[in-house]
């Protein structure tokens, strides 16, 4: 429902289309911007335009990239034979922070969600299949989220990839380091027991 005139309402409408921003928040942000100094508002507008112009998807792994390829795909020191599959670019950031991984990535840009009607064809799976022979991939690590959507995606990919002769692994689920065993839920603790290893 349009309450304000012209540009004000247009700003509120645009803000309201952003994820997690309801009509009330959109209105609050719009008035914040209108009250702000002109250069502050312009800096925000420039940042949006510049990011939108300069950043797009890496044409190989679908991570965010400035230019054709992302930093990981350009980096020659990365092991091209191992691919880590993640749902979103921000998951790459989390894995990189571990400092434990030296392979490359593939971003699905989502996860299978039966209840949202998101099927495998809406993800970058075709593109993943094309990469395997092209880049001589020998191992695929499924690092989708350990929730219902991520598990569904991992199960689907495992069924699809195993017959192709690549090694398919799933990141382990278990107890958060630094936590107490007694607070763990049954599913997590059960998975931790299954994934136990020899010392």
């Amino acid at each position, binding site marked *: 429902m349009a309450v304000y005139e012209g540009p004000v309402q247009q700003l509120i409408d645009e803000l309201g289309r952003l994820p997690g921003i309801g009509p009330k928040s959109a209105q609050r942000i719009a008035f914040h911007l209108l009250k702000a100094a002109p250069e502050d508002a312009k800096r925000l507008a420039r940042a949006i335009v510049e990011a939108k112009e300069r950043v797009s998807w890496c044409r190989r792994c679908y991570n965010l990239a400035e230019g054709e390829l992302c930093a990981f795909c350009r980096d020659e020191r990365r092991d091209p034979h191992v691919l880590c599959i993640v749902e979103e670019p921000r998951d790459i950031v989390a894995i990189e922070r571990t400092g434990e991984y030296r392979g490359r990535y593939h971003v699905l840009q989502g996860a299978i969600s*039966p209840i949202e009607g998101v099927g495998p064809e809406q993800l970058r799976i075709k593109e993943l299949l094309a990469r395997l022979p092209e880049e001589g991939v020998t191992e695929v690590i499924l690092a989708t989220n350990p929730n*219902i959507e991520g598990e*569904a995606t991992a199960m689907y990919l495992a069924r699809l990839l195993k017959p192709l002769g690549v090694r398919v692994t799933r990141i382990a689920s278990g107890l958060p380091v630094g936590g107490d065993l007694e607070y763990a839920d049954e599913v997590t603790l059960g998975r931790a027991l299954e994934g136990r290893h020899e010392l």
Partner: protein
Amino acid sequence: MRRWWVRGDRSGCRGGPAATELHWCHMSRLYRDEGVVLRTIKLGEADRIVTLLTQGHGRVRAVAKGIRKTTSKFGARLEPASRVALQCHRGRELDVVTQVETIEAHRVLREDYGLLTRAVPMLEAVDQVAPEREPAPALYRMLTGALRTLAQRRSPVVTPAFFWKLCSLEGFHPLLDACARCGTPAPEPGPDDGADPRALVAFDLDEGGTVCRSCARGGGRPCSPGALALLGRILGGGLNAALAEPPGPAVHEVEQLAVRALEHHVERRLRSAALL
């Protein structure tokens, strides 16, 4: 320290007239119940809105704060299909989950792709038909029973059977032994030579049941004798035998028809049925 839930314990509740059946705790706005997680959607940075079908409060939507953090006390307890005992704080629109304990985790339903794609449509269907904050004990029993059966027997018949039972619970009982359009009773069972005009050969959702060969020209989805027999067993007290049916064209037909029937009844698309 918070008091923890003991099943069946309603002490501490002294609300108005509805207090006993709903066991609201009017004093603290806290209530305890058990429920099945139907779906979860992300909220903000680290929260989720969890929709549950509870035993005593019907469909409830509650916020699980911080659940997406790896250190959350909820852990994996509020994943879809889990049956849990929970304590919630009642809110105006959304409740807030304060404690959860697993009753049946049904891990296998989330860790087997074939079972997951059969479990989620049942959860979605219940999410659509269950009234908000209104006890639906029959529906609750049906859902918990169906999830357990699916996890134990892995039968492809569970989901369509659940849909047909759900239609039935909602007041739609299909006519299966006569033509729903002209009323002609089905012929004696025997081999159909393809010419008997009385043979029931299709299913018409608008008419609410099977239709005979002569009426089927006017509409309806073609239905094989095998599928009609299976449907008859599902709705006619032969569910246990029906569950032993191996996957095959008849099961697939009954499944597709069940999805259409349910969609027809709730007047909405069942999105997760696309993966069946």
